[in-house]
């Protein structure tokens, strides 16, 4: 039973060691040590599986479910955090790199993220969600001498506390209808008998999760946070919590609440359309790359939500594929943003003009990430969109697929605009070369190579997803 939560235990112990033990006088050992902790945490479940141990199933009297879905999303989260540690290692300006508290907070946030995909009890779900949220507020306000960063963190915190409070009220309504916090035991007939209260509870839950995913009516914090907070923190907040939240949504809505899909599917369909449209239209006039990426990540969350709204195994598989692609392309791009922010101190688009003449390799890697975000074949981002739209068509949501396709055209426009800035705009006079940091170069190359691999050679990932998606989902298996 304990083996299933060994990664969480290891990371908690590691976080405390990093914070307290005096032997780490030199800040240089912080990055390798945190990276090693994350790598070991990712390796433990893989090693146990290879040695023939089975996954635990429902543990701790059914509170935590350690199945293939949990395993897959936990590995994804650890990959994302590992890449974030590499990003921090290349951040010379913000001063996060040498602060042991930063790594402590990062690892503890990771513990919360690892608990989210497996949470099978609404109380544990709320606890894990709040662990992630409260620590993310602190991470984003970490540079307390930087007024912008603290302002962004305060906005994030006020939005966040409000929406998780609303989420908790929704949970209390669900409990009132169902009489249990165990999401496997929620009697769906009882929910069906009082559709008004159920709908209210679902809307309240959607507010809470929508905040974490930055869906549109609840996205107000995202642009400010992306602009104000240090780039590595933004890179973390824009990927890992979203992936974990989508895992929660798959387990809660698609698996256990699928009998009342008619109530929530339409809600998520509308949220998806509004989120994509507003995100993409607002991204068009942006002149700051981090702000542009905020709106782009809002739009991507909307596109992923289509997979959820489809409500089928195909939809869940497409969502998971999209999540992998989004992790790689967004983290890769934020590594470039970090490098530029350390070199220039800001991230307006003007800083990036003519980057191809200044740093050809970095510009090329950035361009691949941007094209993948824009959905240009044969990169993984394109196939993510393709699977998601395919799931919508199969799920009789053709209007949603059409809305998504129109939106990807708008999205391609502003990503190509950034690529044009990189390649065609003139290099401002007096630019110094950007110091190359090994961890950033390596991380970006890894992301770009993986984007090509996942795009051109999809078989292995699709096969993994076929195994991972729970068999309770209609129509039983993934149709690829």
């Amino acid at each position, binding site marked *: 039973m304990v083996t299933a939560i060994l990664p969480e235990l290891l990371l908690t112990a590691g976080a405390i060691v990093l914070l307290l033990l005096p032997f780490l006088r030199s800040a240089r050992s912080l990055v390798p040590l945190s990276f090693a902790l994350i790598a070991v945490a990712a390796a433990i479940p893989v090693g146990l599986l290879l040695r023939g141990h089975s996954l635990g199933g429902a543990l701790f009297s059914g509170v935590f479910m350690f199945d293939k879905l949990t395993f897959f999303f936990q590995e994804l989260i650890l990959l994302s955090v590992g890449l974030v540690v590499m990003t921090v290692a290349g951040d010379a300006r913000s001063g996060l790199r040498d602060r042991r508290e930063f790594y402590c907070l990062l690892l503890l946030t990771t513990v919360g993220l690892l608990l989210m995909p497996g949470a099978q009890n609404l109380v544990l779900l709320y606890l894990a969600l709040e662990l992630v949220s409260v620590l993310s507020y602190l991470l984003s306000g970490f540079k307390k001498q930087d007024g912008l960063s603290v302002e962004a963190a305060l906005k994030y915190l006020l939005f966040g506390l409000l929406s998780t409070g609303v989420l908790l009220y929704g949970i209390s309504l669900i409990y009132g209808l169902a009489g249990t916090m165990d999401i496997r035991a929620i009697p769906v007939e009882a929910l069906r008998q009082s559709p008004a209260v159920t709908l209210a509870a679902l809307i309240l839950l959607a507010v809470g999760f929508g905040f974490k995913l930055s869906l549109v009516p609840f996205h107000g914090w995202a642009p*400010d946070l992306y602009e104000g907070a240090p780039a590595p923190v933004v890179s973390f907040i824009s990927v890992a919590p979203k992936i974990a939240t989508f895992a929660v949504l798959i387990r809660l809505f698609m698996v256990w609440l699928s009998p009342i899909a008619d109530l929530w599917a339409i809600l998520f369909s509308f949220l998806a359309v509004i989120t994509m449209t507003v995100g993409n239209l607002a991204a068009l006039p942006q002149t700051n790359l981090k702000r542009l990426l905020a709106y782009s990540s809002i739009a991507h969350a909307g596109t992923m939500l289509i997979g959820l709204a489809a409500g089928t195994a195909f939809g869940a598989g497409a969502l998971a594929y999209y999540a992998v692609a989004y992790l790689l392309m967004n983290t890769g791009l934020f590594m470039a943003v970090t490098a530029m922010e350390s070199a220039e101190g800001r991230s307006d688009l003007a800083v990036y003009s003519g980057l191809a003449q200044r740093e050809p390799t970095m510009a090329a890697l950035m361009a691949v990430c941007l094209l993948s975000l824009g959905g240009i074949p044969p990169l993984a981002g394109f196939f993510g969109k393709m699977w998601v739209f395919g799931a919508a068509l199969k799920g009789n949501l053709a209007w949603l697929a059409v809305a998504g396709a129109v939106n990807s055209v708008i999205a391609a426009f502003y990503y190509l605009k950034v690529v044009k800035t990189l390649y065609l705009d003139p290099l401002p006079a007096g630019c110094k070369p950007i110091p190359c940091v090994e961890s950033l170069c390596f991380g970006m190359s890894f992301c770009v190579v993986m984007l090509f691999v996942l795009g051109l050679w999809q078989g292995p990932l699709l096969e993994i997803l076929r195994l991972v998606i729970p068999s309770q989902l209609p129509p039983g298996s993934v149709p690829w």
Partner: protein
Amino acid sequence: MLIPTSHILVVSAGLFALGLFGALTRRNAVGILMSIELILNSANLNLIAFSRSWGTQQADLQVAVLIVIGIAAAGAVAGLALILAISRHRQTIQADEIKELKG
């Protein structure tokens, strides 16, 4: 005499509405935090009332409520820390005067 569950639910719904209204209209950041605490407490009240009416898993739910109170305290601590930090930078905690970022 036992207070009926429906009465408690009405009170908690009122608290929730009050908290939501306060959080959306207050200008002072500490005031917003206080309104959010109201929302959390209304949810707690709901949970306690429901657990009494379901009757089966009382201990479970009371522990859950204690956990929620703990989390609310942690959130308030993070909030006050950030408010303190921003009041040093801007000499104000009025939410509508803290607007160097566009959002």
